[in-house]
């Protein structure tokens, strides 16, 4: 009985008692959700366009942010460094297409997945060789990212909103909206979905896989850069940031691999779900449930909808 009370009643009582903390929790969840979504978005783009599950997205986040900061440290003005970082991502997209994707056309997904793992290894080595393994500070000021905190007295307590988080949420939302429109409404967008369906058939109708791939990898590179800037500003730019990309997995799966809105909704569900879970229920088992809660949430949703919330229906026809 006691257990039931602790699990089903107490957390809600507490939510009611301290609404300020509830709001703060929701806000933290929202922010991390948006940031997860931003990483997941990079996965979605590439998956949508080429059916490749890009294991390297995490390292691309780190790599792009490192390039930006690294260039800045070498004395390049911030905005020039930003442009150069974007160019570096373009070059990366082209190289990846040439060297990795082109020879592996029409191979099973898992093989391409593996190839992106090779890419990850390469980028880790390459990035550390150039920029060193030391963590760096994101150049928040030079990029005119807002800092500071707004503290609102409300509901008998105080809720803190970081300006940086607000900016992150806004930028991520704009970015996601733009991409969603681009990929659903344009000719290229349609071609992209075709490619994801079948390389062979796409080739046969004259869709240039090479061109499409460069476009999406570049887009994913830019998304990675934005994610890198935002995460970097929150917790520093270092190679360990790469592991955060793992959190994008449940987001991605929950949203359904191919859906841009899915990434954002999935991000919010996971972000808010895990913060609520950790905050209100975590203490019952000694905390730290956040590490697996996201996956369990995603799993529960999947049992109900095996293709994720917004995923394309799995066609089972014989």
């Amino acid at each position, binding site marked *: 009985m006691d257990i039931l009370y602790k699990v089903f009643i107490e957390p809600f009582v507490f939510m009611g008692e301290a609404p300020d903390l509830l709001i703060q929790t929701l806000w933290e969840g929202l922010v991390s959700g948006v940031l997860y979504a931003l990483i997941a978005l990079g996965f979605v783009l590439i998956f949508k366009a080429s059916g490749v599950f890009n294991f390297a997205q995490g390292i691309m986040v780190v790599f792009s942010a490192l390039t930006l900061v690294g260039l800045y440290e070498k004395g390049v003005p911030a905005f020039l460094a930003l442009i150069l970082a974007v160019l570096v991502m373009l070059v990366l997209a082209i190289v990846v297409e040439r060297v990795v994707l082109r020879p592996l056309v029409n191979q099973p*997904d*898992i093989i391409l997945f*593996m190839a992106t793992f*090779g890419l990850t290894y390469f980028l880790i080595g390459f990035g550390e060789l150039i920029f060193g393994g030391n963590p760096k500070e994101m150049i928040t000021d030079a990029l005119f990212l807002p800092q500071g905190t707004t503290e609102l007295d409300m509901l008998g307590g105080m809720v803190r909103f970081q300006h940086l988080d607000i900016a992150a949420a806004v930028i991520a939302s704009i970015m996601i909206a733009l991409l969603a429109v681009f990929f659903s409404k344009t000719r290229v967008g349609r071609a992209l979905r075709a490619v994801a369906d079948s390389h062979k058939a796409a080739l046969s109708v004259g869709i240039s896989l090479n061109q499409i791939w460069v476009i999406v990898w570049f887009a994913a590179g830019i998304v990675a850069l934005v994610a890198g800037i935002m995460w970097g500003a929150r917790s520093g730019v270092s190679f360990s940031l790469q592991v955060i990309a*793992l959190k994008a997995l*449940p987001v991605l799966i929950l949203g359904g691999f191919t859906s841009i809105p899915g990434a954002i909704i999935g991000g919010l569900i996971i972000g808010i779900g895990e913060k609520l879970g950790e905050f209100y229920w975590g203490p019952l088992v000694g905390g730290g449930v956040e590490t697996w809660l996201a996956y369990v949430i995603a*799993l529960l949703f999947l*049992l109900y909808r095996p293709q994720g919330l917004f995923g394309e229906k799995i066609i089972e026809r014989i």
Partner: protein
Amino acid sequence: MLYREAGQFKTNYVADSAIFPLREDRIGIGLIILAAYALAFLGNSFLLQAVMIPFLVFSLASIGLNILTGYTGLLSLGTGAFMGVGAYACYKLMTAFPGVNVIVWIFVSGFFSAGIGALFGLPSLRIKGFYLAVATLAAQFFLQWCFIRIPWLVNYNVSGALDAPLRTLFGVPIMGPNATPQVRYLVVLTIVILLTWLASNLVHGRIGRMWIAIRDMDLAAELMGIRPLQTKLLAFAVSSYYCGVAGALLVFLWYGGAEYDVFNINQSFFILFMVIIGGLGSLIGSFFGAALIFILPIVLGIVLPAVMSPFGITVGSDVIEHLRFMIVGALIIFFLIVEPHGLARLWQIGKQKLLAWPFPY
């Protein structure tokens, strides 16, 4: 000329459905096994301890994952955790019942991970492909959390770590500080050979065909009367069994002591990559994959400085490490481009060429 199919006629189905129908293959396998045993007496302790034992352990884990991912087509990212279950189970068993020989417990510990694996395999009926990965990821992170949070699992050790107490076989220490690399190598080798043989029996028989059927075309398989859930769960269980045994070997016969952290998600990926690069759905590929992913970096670490020093380039260990990462990454991509179906397929093509030799096709 030495490698020919011609002249070897099969007169009965027993011979024809043998796993190695070619005489040359049988001799080859025999020689390899012999050489592997001989290595225990010829190799130095670095080779045995740092190369061969881990290579065999990872091969075993790869075989486990290959059964699930390669043969049955179910992607799993929870290998690390399933290995962990085996290791912790083995630890509990051998400390609770020190009287029973530890070899028994190593084999028994696999059943625990089999059970847990099957449990986490339940969603596989409904969830497929990359989506299934989330179920196994949930297993990975949840189990890992359990390993840290349940001190009972490590007998309330203050260090929170697993350690390998002294255990003997026929009076010879095989576990613990005094077990020599030779002995441990021989034990691991024997276990791996035995389990590989069993796996090969399984995948070549009815059960293996059912697994492959599910992988290739699960709807058609179901329409042929193959029960999808049972078949998939069996694959999860067998696969996790192998991983569990590999986990126990990893901690107790290789490291000799370890934290929960060796069973983290990276371990899962590491094994998955061995399976893919070795060849999905190939037992021998599991060995190739383990060799490439595990041994190649070691070799590079030795070779790179040696290659560079004649040119007067001396670089730090960190640069070597960076280069090693880059080269391994590039080689993975290279191998995939050369043969996406893994090293096992390259091997097969090589054999086919040999059969056709001296003609190109």
